[in-house]
């Protein structure tokens, strides 16, 4: 019985650990990445050469909300900044001056993904919660859409 209880505690602890989201100190991260925040609540970091379906979902989300004051967009794991700017221009967004670019090594050093988009939820305590946008049921994107409405 004792063993079972210990096992249950261990499993509960493990599950809790899995659920816990990554948190990063965003100020040094954005300083290192040369990104200036205004009053955005979210920063969506898109790995351009990552999972192609996820990148498509990111663009599908970003384009109708390109000028939203609530969210900022940045790219990592890209081959060319120019390629991203030209793509955005073709998609109708002439002004790309607010788009951030983060070196992949900087993103990886801070625990972000080279494969999946990372959503940073900016807190007032200098911390940002990181969510990798790879939920199989798409619930992460639905949640974000509601936040940015």
């Amino acid at each position, binding site marked *: 019985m004792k063993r079972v209880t210990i096992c249950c505690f261990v499993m509960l602890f493990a599950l809790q650990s899995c659920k816990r989201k990554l948190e990063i100190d965003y100020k040094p991260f954005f300083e290192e990445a040369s990104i200036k925040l205004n009053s955005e609540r979210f920063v969506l970091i898109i790995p*351009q*050469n990552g999972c*192609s379906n996820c990148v498509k979902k990111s663009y599908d989300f970003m384009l109708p909300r390109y000028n939203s004051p609530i969210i900022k967009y940045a790219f990592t794991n*890209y*081959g*060319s*900044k*120019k*390629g991203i700017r*030209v*793509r955005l*221009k*073709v998609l109708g967004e002439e002004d790309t001056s607010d788009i951030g670019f983060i070196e992949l090594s900087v993103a990886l050093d801070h625990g972000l993904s080279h494969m999946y988009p990372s959503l940073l939820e900016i807190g007032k305590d200098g911390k940002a919660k990181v969510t990798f946008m790879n939920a199989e049921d798409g619930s992460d994107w639905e949640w974000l859409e509601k936040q940015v409405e």
Partner: protein
Amino acid sequence: MRKIIKPALITLLFLWCISGLAQKTQVGVIGELNLALDNETAPPNSMGSSFQYCEDRKAIAYFNRLTKAIKYFDAKTGKGVGQTQFALQGPDDIGPDPFYFHYHNKDSIFILSRGTNFRMFLMNSEGKKLNTFHYSSDDYSKIRYPSASTLFGALVVRPPFAYIGLEISDQGSQNTMAPIIKLNMDTDTFNYLADPLPYQNIDLQTTVWNNFYYFYNSRIAENTKNGDLIVSFPLDHNVYRIRSEGIEKLDGKSKAIGDFHFLKRKRQVAYDPNNIDVRSIGSSSAWYYGVIYNPYLDQYYRIGMVEQGRDTYKRRLEGEEVYDPVQYSVTIYDSKFHKIADGIIHGREVLFARGIFVTPDGLCGPQHSLKGEDIMGISIIGLKK
């Protein structure tokens, strides 16, 4: 003692001569060219793009997929010398995701595009649509849907026929015909070639290629001098020569491409990139890109991805983070497909994943973007003398 010294000296002399010959036939980077990009052209992304040398223009054509335009660069100076801009919508539209072109001449440019229900467009240099060909089927139970290969070797045009190299299926029941369509452009009808059948000795459920596209691109090379077609599959050391009299299996093994790796289990059909064995094989294993023919030098090149590191696959399988450099294998063959030389090209010299083409100077591919965003460096690979 003299009896020993004399043969030893002769042997040494012989080995010296042999090594000298080997040195003369080394494969390596023999030149480079810088393409001057305009303000709407960027080097290809990680999925690559198609390039081609255009004999009638003496220019390198590059498909700028961002703006749906073919950009032409002088093959000697690298300066931009014009473009073919395709319509983004309307009757001359070439579909939502054009990914491949074949420049036959300035009046005949063939385009393959995703999202068009398997249509091939014939365009001219002004971007006007001249014809549309169809290669979709009603029933995909016995064949895979005909998704064409990327980068190079997906299209051979020999009027009135066009040969389209397709992705190989990961289900045996869909590989009962060759992954090559022969389309008659006069009648807009097509059939699949009966041979060569891919991967007949591989248990397809132990492969990882439903997650890694580069394991399933079949590619065709056309010898424009004698009419031979050479077909290459990524996980097959042999290549297949198609002539009017039949198909012949040829030894196409590159020295640097060793054994291919397969799963120890039978995987599900579903996409499962997160399983460590799938990732380990997918990110470490060797494969062949394909064969490309250079009509100016009358040579074939077989290009491959060398297995990364020693035992990298096993180390990754055990959870170790391993970062090995990318290396490509380039093997050069003469017009009869007799091997001339084997070589290894380091990934810092060229990125074949971004593009593969030939010019009169040799085999070419884009370099890393280290020269700024307005220059695309091209490495030229061939026999070093």
